[in-house]
């Protein structure tokens, strides 16, 4: 529980992230996953998540684990965002289970989170090393990747500036290699 409050430092990536909005470290994201995170080199997230009581390592199902409900989550400052990566996107994501379903818990006390930040965060944590350029480019998503928020095209709702709400389901699908 306390781990949520103190969060942990997300290691800054080599690229500069600051563009006026809060940097990743300042935002203190805590990502909750359904399976124990695979070890990533030098990743503080992996070490803390593995020891965090919120991760249920015996759970094999995809979907939100029970432990999420036990946390005393302050609804106003924490959002749960479910993300999916299908139709070719799973090739960019580090493992299949994450690609099927991955839930983020995000602290938005300081500043609301928009799609731009989510894309940046996903690019750093979930995308395989070396494939970042196939996922995000120039602060936005790569052309050819569709973003669907709650079964709706994101271009209908403010595109990159869309502010995430609790319970949103964001799906990324690739239209390259359409057959």
């Amino acid at each position, binding site marked *: 529980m306390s781990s949520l409050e103190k969060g942990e430092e997300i290691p800054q990536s080599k690229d500069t992230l600051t563009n006026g909005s809060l940097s990743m470290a300042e935002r203190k994201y805590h990502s909750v996953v359904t399976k124990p995170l695979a070890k990533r080199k030098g990743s503080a997230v992996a070490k803390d998540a593995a020891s965090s009581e919120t991760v249920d390592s015996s759970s094999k199902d995809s979907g939100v684990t029970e432990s999420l409900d036990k946390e005393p989550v302050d609804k106003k400052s924490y959002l749960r965002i479910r993300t999916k990566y299908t*139709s070719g996107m799973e*090739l960019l994501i580090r493992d299949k289970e994450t690609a099927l379903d991955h839930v983020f818990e995000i602290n938005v006390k300081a500043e609301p989170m928009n799609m731009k930040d989510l894309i940046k965060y996903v690019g750093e944590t979930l995308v395989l090393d070396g494939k970042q350029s196939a996922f995000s480019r120039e602060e936005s998503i790569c052309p050819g990747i569709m973003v669907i928020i709650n079964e709706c095209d994101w*271009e*209908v709702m403010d595109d990159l500036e869309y502010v995430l709400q609790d319970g949103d389901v964001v799906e990324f699908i690739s239209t*390259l290699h*359409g*057959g």
Partner: protein
Amino acid sequence: MCDATDTPAMESQPQLQKERVVGTPSKLCVKCKAAKPSISIRRSLYCRDCFVRASVTKFRTALSKSRKRMPVARARVMVALSGGATSSAMLQLMADYQRMELKGYAAEPTYASVVAGHVDESALFSGYDDAQICDIAAAIDIECRVARLEDVFALEGDRAALLELVHATIAPGTTRDQFCVQLTRGDESKPAREQLRALFAGLGSATDREDMLDIIKSFLLARLARQAQCELLLLGDSGTRIASKLVSLTSRGRGFSLPLEVGAETPFLGSSSSGVMAYRPMRDLIMKEIAFFNLWTRQPSVVVPTFTTGAPETASIDRLTESFVVGLDRDFVSTVPTVCRTVQKLELCPEALTAAQCIVCSMPAEANAQAWRNRLTVNVAPSEQSLEHDIAPSADIQSPLSSFGVTAHLCYSCQSLLHFAKPGVALPAFCLENYREQATASPPSDAENDIDADSQQRRESLRLRIEEFFI
């Protein structure tokens, strides 16, 4: 006079305004004007139901436009199903159209029956489940016929043989490239899969491999359609695919046969004597529309890998043009429709209508394509080239067969493909079939060959005279 000082008008001129407009004020579907929009296509907002209906209408309109050139009254249709998003959507749309007609609204259905045809690529690519693709067809009660890639190397009968590439670089005085092949019975102990992999391993680049894969798939689809007695083949080329194909085929030197490869209808796919007619009814739908259509109609599809899956942009010409067109289309939303409109205006030139067919790709082969290649800059002056004969060892030939030239039977693009192929590469069996067909149909006109050789010699002697002035 034009003033070079900075004026506000001058400053805004160079940059084309990017067109991505989001969050328009009147947030309602443009069609029904009642529901909340769920998708934005070319800056127009549509709600889910109107969008699905509009997509279905686009498909049916495209199909009915092509119907004017239908080969027979009630054709049997084969839907080419690769398992990807576009072909799965096309199968659903076609099945839905057929069901609607059979329900009795039409006096007689336009198309007699619908089957699905699939080419199994597991000989070259792993990582996808072929059974899933047949399940897609089975889910809507459509029969699925499967051909395997390695079938092009399955030899039958006693006349069976393969054409093997013999690459000879001739000393100065004659043409630069000579494409010679020889008949070989092939290594019968090697399974067809191995021969297929050997073919692809012997090709020069990822672009060539993709080209050869397309050629083999087209041939197999046409053959599947013929075997199923279908007069019509539906190809799943989306608008985005057609736009990027236009650019990439032109870059590969296929401009001569371009209208056949990107047009709405292809009168004959496969050889002209036994080809099938092919339509591209998904040409009005861009990839985004197809992706959302599949999402909202819960249409399953399979990601089928290819040579450049996961590779960087510069892996092949196709990959590069795809990322170029898709990138451009995102910022300027009318890119793909504009290019597709241009595509519809393309027509074959008169020479293409009467040209002989290339024995590899079965597209019209431009006569004198060889002359074009000879005008390319050479790295090494011909006088410095040594006489090389790379004759590959070939097993199991009963009588020593000499190599013969097939330069006149190859289109420009296939000449480039074979130019970079390793000697000893065995071409698929259909190449020999095509060659035999053409050889029996029209004996080679020796007179024409002589005239060509004569002018070549004259040109060569002139070149030798002025060679010292070259830099």
